[in-house]
């Protein structure tokens, strides 16, 4: 009897070891697949011998020529544009999103349900459709091409109220009894928000700031539309997209790699530092919706 149990235990242990080994192999393979593009892009950004696309990864001649060329190109302007846009948008958008989500989570007013349903329906229209008219309106206001930065900020911020789902999901999880207790003690609704809810909602505030920063940092379509043809109004994504068009790629391929590294570094570092909050936001709010 004892022997049998031991044998069974051994079998279980052995099968667990085997399955764990398989999992480790799979995980290592996956890690390689997921990291290869990033390793390649870093390696190729240090390639000196040629600027076009080649079939090998490790440079034959190392150097920082591409980064110097980047410094002497319009990349600086694009980078500054992107940075300003992302910074301003993340600040304003966070305020707007928090206002929306807190209100829809805490207040019960007459048009609330209708409003939420209406925004759900609005969200089913492809946002790209609005670009044509927004572009023409911005153009009439003089906020395109060279002045694309304020125009882009305006449009990003103005329509950001629609993205309230995630943080509303989070606010819903904060017990309402806290609000009521504070109200009994004589706090106004505004004080409840600033003194009680916001300190508790730190993870979701950081999540909102982070996503609001990363959105415009990588935005491509609308920025391309608005800055059309004028280098000084472009952001990094639009400018570097042009470098990979067929007639530019042979001169700019390695510069694209260098630019990619410079562009990705700050967001990647920011993201890695705040990863905890991002995960909390995604798992807490995103699914509940």
């Amino acid at each position, binding site marked *: 009897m004892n022997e049998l149990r031991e044998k069974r235990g051994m079998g279980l242990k052995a099968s667990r070891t085997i399955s*764990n080994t398989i*999992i480790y192999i*799979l995980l290592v393979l*996956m890690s390689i697949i*997921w990291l290869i*593009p*990033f390793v390649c*892009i870093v390696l190729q950004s240090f390639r000196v011998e040629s600027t076009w*696309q*080649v*079939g*090998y*990864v490790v440079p034959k001649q190392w150097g920082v020529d591409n980064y110097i060329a980047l410094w002497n190109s319009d990349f600086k302007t694009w980078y500054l544009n992107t940075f300003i846009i992302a910074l301003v948008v993340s600040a304003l958008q966070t305020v*707007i999103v928090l*206002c929306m989500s807190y209100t829809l989570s805490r207040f019960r007013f007459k048009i609330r349900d209708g409003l939420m349903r209406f*925004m759900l*329906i*609005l969200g*089913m*229209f*492809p*946002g*790209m*459709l609005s*670009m*044509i*008219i*927004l572009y*023409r*309106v911005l153009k009439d206001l003089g906020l395109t091409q060279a002045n694309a930065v304020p125009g882009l900020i*305006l*449009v990003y911020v*103005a*329509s950001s*109220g*629609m993205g309230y789902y995630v943080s509303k999901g989070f606010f819903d999880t904060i017990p309402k009894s806290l609000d009521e207790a504070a109200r009994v003690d004589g706090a*106004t609704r505004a004080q409840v*928000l600033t003194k009680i809810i916001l300190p508790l909602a730190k993870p979701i505030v950081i999540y909102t700031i982070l996503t609001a920063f*990363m959105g415009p940092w*990588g935005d*491509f*379509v609308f920025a391309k539309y608005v800055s059309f043809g004028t280098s000084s109004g472009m952001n990094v*994504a639009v400018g*570097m*997209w042009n470098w990979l068009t067929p007639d530019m*790629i042979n001169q700019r*391929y390695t510069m694209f790699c260098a630019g*990619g590294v410079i*562009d*990705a570094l700050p*967001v*990647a570092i920011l*993201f*890695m530092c705040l*990863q905890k909050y991002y995960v909390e936001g*995604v*798992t*807490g709010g995103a*699914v509940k*919706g």
Partner: protein
Amino acid sequence: MKKYSDMEFLRLSKGQKFLYKLLRFFASIPGAIGSLFLAIGRFFKDLGLRIGQEFREIVTTFTGGDWKTKTSYFVMGFGSIARGQVLRGVLFLVFEIVFIFYMVVAGGHWMSMLPSLGKVGPHEEYSQVLDAYTTVYGDNSFKILLYGVLTVFFIVAFLYTWRLNVKQNRISEDLIRSGHRLKSGKDDLRSLVDEQFYKTLLALPLMGILIFTVMPIIFMILVAFTNYDGTHDGYNNALFGWAGLKNFNTMLSWSGGGNVYSATFGEVLTWTLIWAFFATFTNYFLGVFVAMMINKKGIRLKKVWRTILVMTIAIPQFISLLYVSKMFAKNGIVNGLLLDLGWINQAIDFWGSTAHNALLPRVMVIVINIWIGIPYLMLIATGILMNIPADLYESARIDGANPWQQFTKITLPYMLFITGPYLLTSFTSNMNNFNVIYLLTGGAPINASASSAAGSVGYTDLLITWLFKITTGAGAQYYMASVIGILVFVVVAVISLVVYNVLPSIKNEEDFQ
């Protein structure tokens, strides 16, 4: 079809159960659509009743009200000011003055032009000063449509405010009659940070949504009924005007005019749905699988594996997607490596330049989308997996369930239940996944059979990238883009409604226990 009771259902075999559920699903679709129409009908009936009631109330307020109330029908806010609520009254009055001023100066003009969208286009005119013919610009159809829509918005807002003003008088009268004190301006302001704090909080965001989301959408819906395109831009080259349902007929071709667009539309829509299906479910199941691997007991370095995957979320998509797309180019790294290893003799054309290998690019975008999407799903799944009560597994193990059974009986139903709504939204957002397609392939390879439709449609083009292509360049056909946009909305709305009405797990949170 026959409906089984619970006991009968339990007695069925596995295959029968599945078949039964599937049949029930499809059998309930007509019902769902029917109830949708019923709901729409009910909505309009309620709306009619509401409007009738409002009118009756407006009349009775007038006949039953005192002279202050009666004057307020013409001078908004008069009643409020006369009863001591100066702040409210002044706001009403200012709004009325602004409205009348706007309508006289500009609004009336835009409204009168709206039916024609402009009468005088750009034309040559003899100029005596220059002694030559110069181009003189006339009306601007774009502005007429835009300001016309804004004016309609304004009129609706005015009517609503006017109604509010009337209602205000009635409430005040009732309050005074029953001996209550009216709220002062100070009280009004205080309530904006207290009971009515929501109005303060929502004012700015909703204003932004109204101007930058609602207004453009209404405008673009209207554009679908015009002939606004690159050669009729409304000002510089020619006016544009109303075209009725002509554009919808071109796209769906229900009567005459060939079926160039409808064939292309069908093809692109099919691929969009296939893409959305695979993009959603491959990511979903593989993401859950990866999350389970990482979270398995006894696996070390959990944080390291997670961080490596999460890198792809942190790097801006345009860098990773553009770079990966170039890696698989004909002279890219992947082909170079395969050639060096001697596994292939000539470079593989992953992005397919000709029609006969359209399948490969399609598979490629789905596979690369897995690379993009798994980390995100892994995070979501990790959060949910940790929330599954451990005692469920405990009792399953005691009952002798093997890991596979535990997965299919506990993990998967739980996941599907929690993430049902998420799956739906991720399906619809994949239908509109512009970035992945545009940055990877740009829609290539070109679909030669669709060449007579605008926008040089390719085999990997989704409806959304097609829409984008149509709106750029000299041959831009904005009206066609609008038609596509409206059709995308219809498809998304129908899918969402049917799924929401048919899947019980989404509606009843108590079902899963």
